[in-house]
């Protein structure tokens, strides 16, 4: 009994309002993926006019029998090898929806292409040759569908004509694959016996499979649902960039889950800073009213100037992701070189990237074999669980809480080499910022600046030990104070005696020392004071971080006194001690001072007097909008 389903039903006029579902076809090489796709296109009346005839004539010219798979093997390279090497996308219509079929290669060598294709899919068709049964690549693809988060899987048992449409053989394969998939947490939506070459089970239930009661392939495709945006979950907005094209400071990104609106109280992770959304910006019309939901690319402005950068994640206060330097993940590996313990990698999670080290590897296994487990390395096309130590903290969720912020990719030499799911997140040392409610100052900035005759600023003096930073800082402090201003001196050594007493001189500790100095100084500057920081701050990267924290308030002064003069001054006796070896890690003797390249001012104190150098700093502050007074040209007075 032939029961052909009329498949191609006219769509709505603009062709774009019907639900669209993307389905990837996966399975072992030569089990008939391309043939099934070709057949589906034909059965649903989706082939362009003349395409079938053109390919039939090409086959005849080449002396090959026509195969349905030729429809897809559009590339020369593929025709030569007879295998699909990259994903191809084909569109057709079923009764209720537009289908984008992604044909992924079954060859193990091209697993990276299978993953590229499958990661875009809402659902999957897993194809198995009835004669060959479940093979290693069948299992591997099943496992990867699970790792990629593709939950809807329909299984197709193809080439039933080769086993005389045996119901017993079908049951055997059905039981084996169902057990495998269920073990991975994926329940197949259907298992369908077909012959893609002859058409049985594709669009119609033919007499040869009359013992089968389930849906045809077309019906099974119709039952797969488009993936929905994750609106019901907590807000996660990974920051892509901060734009300052005009007087707006727009934080741009895509809402991966949840929703947001102007007025929402948000927390910026991993730093834990709190702000309110002032507006949602748009174009051509702006601001945009109403609630913005998951899936939208948005731009927002905040009610206060905070240091925020690409890679941060915006969440609602009280419902934020964890900040962490340690992640456990289940990953698949695609790189030629196996991933080993202690490997140095680049991790991308959301829009954040950070260097990282693989601390431990467990349960490494070939998902095709599912036998030999090892714990030293993960070979190409294998999967495993790894512990990762991150060079910088990031915001993440376990994938069971949020599939978007719970997945990561790994890059090696600038190329994506693997990816996987976040199993667990070790929270960092920072207190969860739920209880932190910043109290704003009672004074407006203009009240302060009217009294002080200056805006707030961070004047950052950097240079070798004994280059004259503290001397200049004290002179500047005195000068500004005499003029009625409000300077505050933050000397690196002074702060190390108290606030930073827990820090040593390792690279990590120096970074933290600078971060604290910058945070304190920025707080003072935001409250109208001029914070004068005198700190060796040898690392260019640390100073760049300080500049990012203070943002537009930052004024760097490079005290560029030559090294030999610094050593001859040596007021604290550090150079002498370092020369005798009594002082380790002393900047000045080694070569570890990185001179600034973009400082607002450079001063060599060996070439000028202290008042003269102070004048110059004052002029720079006036020119860059910190000091209000119309300065007479002090140089002219000399």
């Amino acid at each position: 009994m032939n029961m052909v389903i009329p498949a191609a039903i006219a769509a709505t006029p603009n062709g774009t309002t019907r639900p669209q579902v993307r389905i990837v076809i996966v399975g072992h090489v030569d089990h008939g993926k391309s043939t099934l796709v070709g057949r589906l296109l034909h059965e649903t009346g989706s082939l362009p006019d003349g395409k079938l005839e053109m390919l039939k004539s090409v086959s005849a010219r080449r002396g090959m029998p026509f195969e349905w798979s030729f429809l897809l093997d559009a590339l020369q390279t593929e025709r030569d090898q007879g295998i699909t090497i990259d994903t191809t996308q084909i569109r057709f219509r079923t009764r209720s929806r537009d289908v984008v079929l992604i044909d992924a290669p079954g060859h193990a060598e091209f697993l990276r292409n299978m993953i590229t294709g499958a990661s875009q899919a809402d659902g999957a068709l897993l194809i198995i040759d009835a004669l060959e049964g479940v093979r290693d690549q069948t299992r591997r693809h099943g496992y990867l569908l699970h790792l990629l988060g593709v939950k809807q899987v329909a299984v197709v048992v193809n080439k039933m004509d080769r086993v005389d449409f045996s119901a017993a053989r079908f049951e055997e394969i059905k039981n084996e694959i169902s057990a495998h998939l269920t073990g991975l947490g994926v329940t197949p939506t259907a298992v369908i016996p077909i012959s893609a070459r002859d058409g049985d089970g594709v669009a119609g239930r033919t007499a040869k499979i009359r013992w089968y009661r389930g849906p045809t392939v077309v019906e099974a495709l119709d039952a797969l649902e488009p993936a929905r945006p994750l609106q019901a979950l907590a807000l996660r907005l990974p920051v892509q960039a901060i734009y300052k094209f005009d007087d707006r400071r727009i934080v741009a990104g895509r809402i991966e889950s949840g929703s947001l609106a102007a007025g929402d109280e948000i927390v910026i992770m991993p730093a834990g800073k709190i702000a309110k959304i002032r507006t949602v910006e748009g174009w051509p019309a702006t601001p945009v009213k109403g609630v913005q939901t998951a899936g939208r690319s948005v731009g927002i402005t905040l009610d206060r100037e905070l240091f925020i950068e690409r890679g941060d994640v915006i969440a609602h206060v009280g419902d934020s992701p964890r900040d962490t330097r340690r992640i456990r993940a289940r990953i698949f590996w695609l790189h030629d070189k196996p991933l080993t313990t202690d490997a140095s990698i680049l991790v991308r999670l959301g829009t954040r990237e950070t260097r990282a080290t693989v601390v431990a590897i467990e349960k490494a296994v070939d998902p095709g074999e599912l036998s030999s487990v090892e714990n030293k390395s993960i070979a190409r096309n294998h999967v495993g669980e790894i512990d990762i130590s991150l060079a910088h903290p990031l915001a993440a969720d376990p994938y069971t809480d949020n599939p978007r912020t719970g997945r990561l990719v790994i890059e090696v030499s600038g190329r994506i080499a693997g990816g996987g799911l976040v199993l667990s997140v070790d929270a960092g040392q920072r207190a969860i910022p739920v209880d932190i409610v910043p109290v704003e100052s009672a004074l407006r900035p203009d009240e302060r600046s009217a009294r002080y005759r200056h805006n707030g600023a961070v004047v950052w003096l950097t240079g070798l030990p004994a280059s004259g930073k503290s001397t200049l800082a004290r002179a500047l402090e005195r000068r500004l104070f005499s003029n009625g201003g409000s300077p505050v001196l933050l000397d690196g050594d002074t702060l190390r005696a108290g606030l930073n007493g827990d820090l040593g001189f390792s690279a990590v500790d120096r970074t933290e020392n600078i971060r604290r100095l910058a945070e304190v100084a920025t707080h003072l500057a935001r409250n109208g004071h001029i914070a004068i920081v005198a700190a060796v701050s040898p690392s260019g990267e640390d100073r760049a971080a300080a500049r990012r924290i203070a943002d537009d308030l930052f004024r760097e002064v490079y005290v560029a006194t030559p090294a030999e003069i610094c050593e001859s001054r040596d007021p604290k006796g550090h150079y002498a001690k370092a020369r005798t070896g009594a002082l380790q890690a002393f900047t000045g003797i080694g070569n570890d001072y990185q001179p600034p390249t973009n400082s607002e001012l450079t001063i060599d104190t060996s070439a000028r007097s202290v008042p003269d150098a102070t004048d110059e700093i004052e002029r720079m502050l006036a020119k860059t909008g910190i000091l209000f007074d119309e300065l007479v040209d002090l140089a002219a007075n000399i």
Partner: protein
Amino acid sequence: MHLLDKDSAMDQLRWNGPTEGSLVGQISTDARSHQPAMDHLDALEAQSIYIFREAFARLKKLALLWSLGKDSNVMIWLARKAFFGRVPFPALHVDTGKKFPEMYSFRDRYGEEWQLDLKIEPCPPLETIDPTLPPAARSAARKTDGLKLALAKYGFDGLIAGIRRDEEATRAKERVFSPRGTEGGWDVRDQPPEFWDQFNASPPPGAHLRIHPILHWTEADIWAYTKRENIPIIPLYLAKDGKRYRSLGDADITNPVVSTASSIEEILTELDGTKVPERAGRALDHETEDAFERLRVAGYL
């Protein structure tokens, strides 16, 4: 619909800055008024904006290839949405000198009106092109060489191109961020994996990336979006005397198709019933089975 000879989109560009009423403290969120659920075009738009912003964040020197056609106009529109009204990188027109006059007047008008940083680069003469290519492909290959010259001149590390997967079989295999060799060539056999919107954005020195923000759109999507957003188009796309252009290239190797569609609505209805491929009017696609693939491997769009 918004034609070249009608009012421009300038009136939509005025920015309504934040008002006192939008300041925090005066906002109550007791009833969150939801935007209508995202439809298909909203989803396409959001994805394209995401791609634009990733490209802008991760590459140093970008340019957008503006071919003046419907697809690249949608691209410019999406870029303006992504960057709140301005396109923060040059629009590059690699000019064969053989486009339709309507295309040049469109370029002159909207290059200015959209405040594009327009860079017009010529193509080398036909005599310099591989003579073993069939005539139309050879003619089109001038553009590939013009592009290489422009790349060498400006040192772009990323080129944003408006190709779509549904246009043509080899384009279906493209990545969103697609690395090109130092010669501009595409190694389809060794494409890096790309998933979860994580893109490979580190081309080796001397090489560049092609970025494809509308790879996932279809021809019908482009028209439906053009209509919804009121994006200007070149009138050649609309039927005149029973014919219209479905795709615009060089005047000498592009032919109109039989059509009565004189509005975007009618184009959409026409597309819904057609089985004729979009590039049917492009001679270079049909000369030999592999001519187009050869062009693409060599760096053609």
